[in-house]
C-alpha cells in the first residue's frame, strides 16, 4: 500500500512536469514561429481535442456519431456568452463550454443511444441540424448574423496544454475498468450486458466525455476566430472531425493524433495548388483509405510493436545460442 502511494505521488509529479514542460516549450515555439504556421498548429491542437472526444464515442465505444459539430457549437456559444455577456474569465469559460456540451449530450443521449449503427448516425445528424437551426434563431446568439466581439484569448500554449491533458485522460480512461467496458460494448453489446456491464450507462458516459472535449474545442475555436456563426458548425465540420478519427484508425489514440496533424495541415500545405487544392485533398483521403483501410494506425498495437522492437535483438541472440 505504501509503495503504491509513493508510486502514485511519483506519477502525479511526472504528469505535472510533463504538463509544465508542454506549456513551457509551446511558449517558446509561440515566440519564434511565424503567425501563419502558428495558427495552423493551433487548429491542429483544437481539432485534436475534438477528435479525441469523437474517438472515444465512435472508435472506443463504437457509437457512430456524425453530429459532433453540434457539441462543438454548444461549447463555442456557451463559452462566448459566458465570457462576453457575463465577463467570466476565459479558462473558466472553456470549462463551462465543455460542461454545457456534455450536459446536453447526457440529455439527448438517453433517447438516442438506444439506437445503433446507421440509425444512431441519422439521429445524431438530425440533432446537429436542430442545434444549428436553434442557434440561427436565438436572440442571445445573434442569429444568422453571428456572435461578434469575442476576445481572441486562445493562445498556442493553452491549446497544447489542454491537448496533452486530453491525451493523458484518454489513455488513462482506456486502460481502466470504464474504458474496458466501453471497448466491450463496441465489440459485442449482448455479451457485455451478460457479464454485468450497464451498456446504457457507459454509452452515455462516453458520449458525455466525448462531447465535453467537443465543447472545449468549440470554446477554444470561438476564442481564436473571435467571431462565430451557426454555419461554422454544419454537417461538413462533423465530417471533418470524423475523417480525422477514421483516417487515423478508429479507437487508436496515436492514430487520432496523426490524423489531426495530417488532415489539418494538408489543406494548408496544398495551398500552392490553388484551385486543385481540395481535389488533391480528396484524392489523398481516398489513397490513404485504399492502402490503410483501417486507418493509418488501425490494428497497430503501439505498446506491443515497441516491445517487439526492443525484444527483437534479444530473441535473435538466444536463437543463435540454441
Amino acid at each position, binding site marked *: *500500500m505504501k509503495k*503504491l*502511494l509513493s*508510486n*502514485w505521488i511519483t*506519477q502525479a509529479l511526472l504528469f505535472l512536469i510533463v504538463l509544465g514542460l508542454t506549456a513551457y516549450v509551446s511558449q517558446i515555439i509561440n515566440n519564434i514561429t511565424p503567425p501563419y504556421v502558428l495558427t495552423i498548429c493551433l487548429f491542429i491542437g483544437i481539432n485534436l481535442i475534438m477528435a479525441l472526444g469523437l474517438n472515444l464515442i465512435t472508435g472506443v465505444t463504437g457509437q457512430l456519431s456524425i453530429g459532433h459539430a453540434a457539441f462543438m457549437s454548444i461549447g463555442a456559444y456557451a463559452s462566448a456568452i459566458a465570457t462576453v455577456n457575463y465577463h467570466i474569465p476565459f479558462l473558466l469559460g472553456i470549462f463551462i463550454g465543455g460542461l454545457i456540451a456534455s450536459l446536453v449530450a447526457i440529455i439527448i443521449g438517453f433517447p438516442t443511444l438506444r439506437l445503433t449503427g446507421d440509425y444512431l448516425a441519422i439521429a445524431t445528424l438530425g440533432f446537429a441540424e436542430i442545434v444549428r437551426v436553434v442557434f440561427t434563431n436565438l436572440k442571445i446568439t445573434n442569429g444568422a448574423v453571428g456572435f461578434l466581439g469575442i476576445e481572441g484569448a486562445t493562445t498556442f500554449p493553452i491549446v497544447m496544454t489542454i491537448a496533452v491533458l486530453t491525451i493523458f*485522460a484518454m489513455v*488513462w*480512461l482506456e486502460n*481502466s*475498468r*470504464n*474504458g*474496458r*467496458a466501453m*471497448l*466491450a460494448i463496441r*465489440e*459485442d453489446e*449482448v*455479451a*457485455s*450486458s*451478460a*457479464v*454485468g*456491464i*450497464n*451498456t446504457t450507462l457507459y454509452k452515455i*458516459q462516453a458520449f458525455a*466525455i466525448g462531447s465535453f472535449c467537443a465543447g472545449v474545442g468549440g470554446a477554444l475555436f470561438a476564442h481564436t476566430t473571435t467571431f462565430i456563426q451557426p454555419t461554422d458548425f454544419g454537417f461538413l465540420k462533423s465530417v471533418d472531425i470524423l475523417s480525422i478519427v477514421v483516417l487515423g484508425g478508429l479507437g487508436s489514440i496515436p492514430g487520432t493524433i496523426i490524423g489531426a496533424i495530417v488532415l489539418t495541415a494538408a489543406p494548408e500545405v496544398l495551398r500552392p495548388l490553388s484551385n486543385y487544392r481540395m481535389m488533391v485533398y480528396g484524392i489523398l483521403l481516398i489513397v490513404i483509405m485504399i492502402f490503410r483501410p483501417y486507418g493509418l494506425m488501425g490494428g497497430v498495437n503501439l505498446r*506491443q510493436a515497441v516491445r517487439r522492437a526492443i525484444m527483437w535483438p534479444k530473441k535473435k541472440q538466444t536463437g543463435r545460442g540454441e
Partner: protein
Amino acid sequence: MSLLTLDNVTIRFGGLTAVDTLNLGVKQGEILALIGPNGAGKSTVFNLITGIYKPTEGAISFDGKPLSGITTHKIADMGITRTFQTIRLFSELSVLDNVKIGAHSRGKAGLFQSFMRLPSMKREETELEEKSIKALEFLDLAAKREEMAKNLSYGEQRRLEIARALVSKPKILLLDEPAAGMNPQEKVVLMEMIRRIRDTGITIFLVEHDMKLVMNISERIAVLDYGKKIAEGTPLEVRSNKAVIEAYLGSGQFKSRIRR
C-alpha cells in the same frame, strides 16, 4: 430448495409459443442438462433467465429473489453468467482483457478513479489481473493471454467464453452448447473442466446436443420438446422414458446410439 426456479414460464413470439408453461428447478451444486430437438426452445430458456427476453407469463426466481423486471447486467451482478451458442467474444481485444471484462461486476472503480489513478484503483487492477490469470490457467489458456481473441482456435474460443463467465465467481453458470464444434479430445477435456468448475461450488446448467457428453456429466436431465417439458430425471430415467424416445430420439437408430 432450488437455487434457480422457473415457475410456469411461457413466452410467445407472435403466434409461436417458444416456451410453454415450463416448471423447472436447478438445485444448488448440481449439473443439470436441458436437451431437446432443434427449435425446442432451449436457448430461449437461457435468454429468459438472463433477462434478454421477458416471459409472457410465469416467473423466474433466483436465490429466493424474483428476476422479473431486472435488467440483464443486474442479473449478471447477482451471480448468473453464461456462454453463448454462437461464440460472442470481444474479438478485437486480448484474451486477458476479455477475462478482465468478465469480472466487470466485481469491480468498483468509477470514472473518478480512472482519471485520478489512485492507489486503491491500482490495487484493484492488480487483483483483477491475478484473478483473470487464475481463471485462464483454470481453462488452460494462460499461455495465450496476449493473443487477440479472434486468433484463437474454435475450441479455445469456447473455453475463453467459459473463463470470462467464471472470473466473476458466479453462483450458477449457464453453458449454451459448450461442446459445439469441438473434436472428441476437446470434448473429453471439456467434460473434465465442467466437473472441476462444479467442484468449486458453482452450479452448472447446460444446454447440449452431444448425448455422450450429456449422459456422462449431468446428474439430472430435463427434456424440452416444442417448448414443453416432456421429461425430467436422472440420465438413466430419461434414457428409458417413453415420451423422450418417441418425441426426441425418434427412430431406432438414434436410440441404439444412446443405449451404447
